[in-house]
């Protein structure tokens, strides 16, 4: 059969389609985002962006209770947000099967931490599957849904950056229509103490049954090769182990919780030296050791970052597979190419202003987190989505002298995700922090997904748009204004006034992401005669402006024509190409 090249995320989407999934929800987050973006193409699946991961999972729970097969997707930290429903969904069990896709990010390619989501499986006492390539990513969705329905439990499908964003060949199948299961009212879904107690007993029994299933599950398999070395591994580590130690025997786990303890014992008995290779926490290792099996893992492998083939070969055989072609040359260090706010990014002027006003900036997560980097260096904190506003309130409560000096900065998508509650708390508890909502009309960081403010759904359909300014007023903020961040003077005045208002205030900095704004605003040039090379414009950190020996230059291919630099120049040395000198 002809196979097609799919990323892990495309394959998961295809798996949902083939397995008869009827409902899917997610909040975007690298590296999980493309799961829903690809599911959106299947008209058989009712799929949407939820406002956050907790809401997404709760919708999935409802769809399951109503009898449908469902899929919910998120990045690893998203599962923290969805942890509350997860813990109790484990008790209620399902009606239609549910698979919860969680994408971890060992190495933190694009995340604020590298937590190991496998711990949630043990915490919630639900099974966890882990695919090792795109074919398995697709197939495991179906297996997860079958386990879900058979054992009356949600199932976690754990991916990682190297699975989600790697492409490999996949054999496709047709969609299998799975009919809705009938809905019947049951106290099994009403988790109050009296009804929850018997459910907890069921959860413990289920874990035992799943452990027995794991022993025979086809997703767990022993590959006997040379018996001197045996390695237990799953997911991307399986591929890296095969690459590093092609002759070693391997116990490949497709199901990482609960573990097939007897199978592991048999494997251990068949090899001379037993290793476990797993990224991040010693999740498998601790359980294997607790079963009294001697195994080597984190004594030689790190709990931090990814584990690549060279490291595996080096730690187990004593020599890496390959070595760098040339040693790093200390005389010519390679300049990093860090991500930056784009030329014309509407967030730039806000950070420029906050820096000049010497504000303490309680930050949040999105493209705008780049405002923490040189030369803007305007952001003081970044913790988790939504933390800006609540931590900002904490600043002034913890140290009253900081009242009026703290500003919370949050993107539009992040505000909807988990900023609204913090803002309500500022009002409720007599805070006075200024909140700047960077409304660039999209969820830019993760690749421009729609959100409740954009008026469009995942499937590209028009829908009601929630307006941020009236929403803030409804939450009780009396001082709310909208500002165009390209207008530096008005922005500065607004920030100055609102920061010392002594009551909750909101500035909505509203201007579409420059990558979405297709209008041609021309570009700007430096007038070499007027430019004194004072470098005031360099403070903006715009990649289009370069300092040369004889003054500044603007790269016309990069300039987006936002005109913010014009307002920063005291010498009137920047003008529109082909236009008159401005102001």
């Amino acid at each position: 059969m002809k196979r097609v090249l799919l990323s892990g995320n495309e394959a998961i989407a295809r798996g949902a389609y083939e397995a008869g999934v009827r409902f899917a929800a997610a909040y975007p987050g690298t590296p999980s985002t493309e799961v829903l973006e690809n599911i959106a193409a299947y008209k058989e699946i009712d799929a949407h962006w939820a406002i956050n991961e907790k809401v997404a999972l709760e919708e999935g729970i409802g769809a399951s209770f109503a009898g449908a097969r469902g899929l919910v997707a998120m990045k690893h930290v998203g599962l923290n947000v969805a942890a509350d429903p997860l813990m109790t969904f484990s008790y209620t069990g399902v009606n239609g099967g549910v698979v919860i896709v969680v994408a971890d990010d060992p190495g933190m390619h694009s995340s604020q931490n590298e937590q190991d989501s496998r711990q949630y499986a043990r915490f919630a006492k639900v099974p966890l599957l882990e695919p090792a390539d795109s074919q398995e990513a697709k197939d495991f969705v179906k297996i997860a849904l079958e386990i879900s329905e058979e054992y009356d439990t949600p199932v976690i499908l754990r991916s990682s950056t190297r699975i989600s964003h790697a492409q490999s060949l996949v054999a496709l199948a047709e969609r299998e229509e799975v009919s809705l299961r009938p809905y019947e009212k049951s106290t099994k879904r009403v988790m109050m103490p009296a009804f929850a107690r018997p459910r907890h007993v069921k959860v413990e029994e289920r874990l035992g049954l799943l452990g027995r299933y794991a022993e025979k599950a086809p997703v767990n398999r022993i590959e006997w090769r040379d018996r001197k070395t045996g390695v237990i591994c799953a997911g991307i580590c399986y591929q890296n182990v095969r690459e590093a130690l092609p002759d070693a025997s391997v116990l490949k786990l497709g199901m990482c919780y609960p573990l097939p303890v007897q199978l592991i014992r048999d494997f251990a008995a068949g090899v001379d030296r037993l290793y476990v290779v797993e990224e991040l926490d010693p999740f498998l290792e601790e359980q294997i050791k607790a079963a009294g099996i001697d195994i080597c893992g984190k004594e030689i492998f790190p709990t931090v970052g990814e584990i690549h083939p060279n490291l595996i070969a080096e730690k187990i055989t004593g020599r890496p597979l390959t070595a760098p072609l040339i040693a790093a040359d200390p005389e010519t260090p390679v300049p990093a190419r860090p991500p930056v706010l784009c030329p014309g990014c509407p967030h730039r002027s806000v950070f420029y202003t906050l820096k000049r006003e010497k504000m303490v900036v309680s930050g949040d997560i999105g493209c705008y987190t780049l405002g923490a980097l040189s030369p803007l260096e305007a952001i003081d904190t970044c913790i988790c989505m939504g933390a800006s506003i609540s931590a900002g309130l904490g600043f002034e409560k913890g140290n009253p002298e900081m009242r009026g000096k703290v500003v919370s900065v949050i993107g539009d998508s992040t505000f909807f995700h988990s900023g609204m509650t913090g803002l309500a708390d500022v009002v409720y508890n007599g805070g006075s922090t200024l909140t700047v909502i960077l409304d660039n009309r999209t969820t830019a960081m993760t690749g421009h997904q729609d959100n409740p403010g954009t008026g469009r759904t995942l499937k590209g359909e028009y829908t009601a748009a929630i307006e941020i300014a009236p929403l803030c007023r409804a939450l009780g903020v009396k001082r709310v204004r909208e500002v165009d961040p390209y207008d530096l003077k008005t922005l500065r005045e607004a920030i100055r006034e609102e920061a010392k208002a002594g009551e909750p205030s909101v500035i909505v900095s509203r201007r579409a992401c420059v990558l979405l704004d297709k209008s041609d605003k021309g570009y700007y040039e430096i007038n070499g005669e007027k430019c004194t090379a004072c470098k005031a414009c360099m403070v903006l950190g715009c990649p289009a402006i370069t300092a040369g020996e004889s003054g500044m230059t603007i790269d016309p291919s990069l300039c987006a024509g936002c005109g913010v630099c014009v307002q920063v120049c005291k010498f009137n040395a920047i003008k529109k190409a082909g236009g008159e000198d401005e102001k």
Partner: protein
Amino acid sequence: MKNNTSILMGGVGGQGIVLASRLLAHVIQAHNHELKISEIHGMAQRGGSVITYVRFGREVFSPLIEPGQADYILAAEKLEAWRWLPYLRRGGTMVCSTQEIKPVPVITGKQEYPKTIMEKMQALAEEGTIGRLYAVNALEIAEKCGQPKAATVALIGVLARSLPFPCESYLAALKAIVPTRHLAANEKTFLAGYNYFTE
């Protein structure tokens, strides 16, 4: 016995590295190899380093390429060629553009753009550390062919000479992937690269 080939492609966001990997994937698939591609979508949309690993052959396990492992490197920018050079295996092939795109630490004057990249790579090529070095002004080639955005396609053309697939496979891949209105310019750019070192 080595049973696969590793190609590392590096550039700057917006240079078409992802398109290049799709083209190669199309060609490789047409010849029925096992294939894995790994992309790192960095933090931001623009301006950061972009890196893609393409591995193909009879059997491919890890989608990763590690230092000293790449049989080929295609670099769409000179500094990126230098950055990823340690990933080339001894005797491997480097195809790189002479184009310079300054990263922000250089723009802001915090760091210098290394001046002697080409000289150093040439010296490494002379002593055989780099097996073959093809440095081309890909941007100029693409501009001459009427599509400056297709510079990376010119590099694919240069690389194609060293890979075990016929020219027609690449032209078929272009036809399948590039929008019709840009196809002619892309084909011309590819062939200009393909013939660059043979004319």
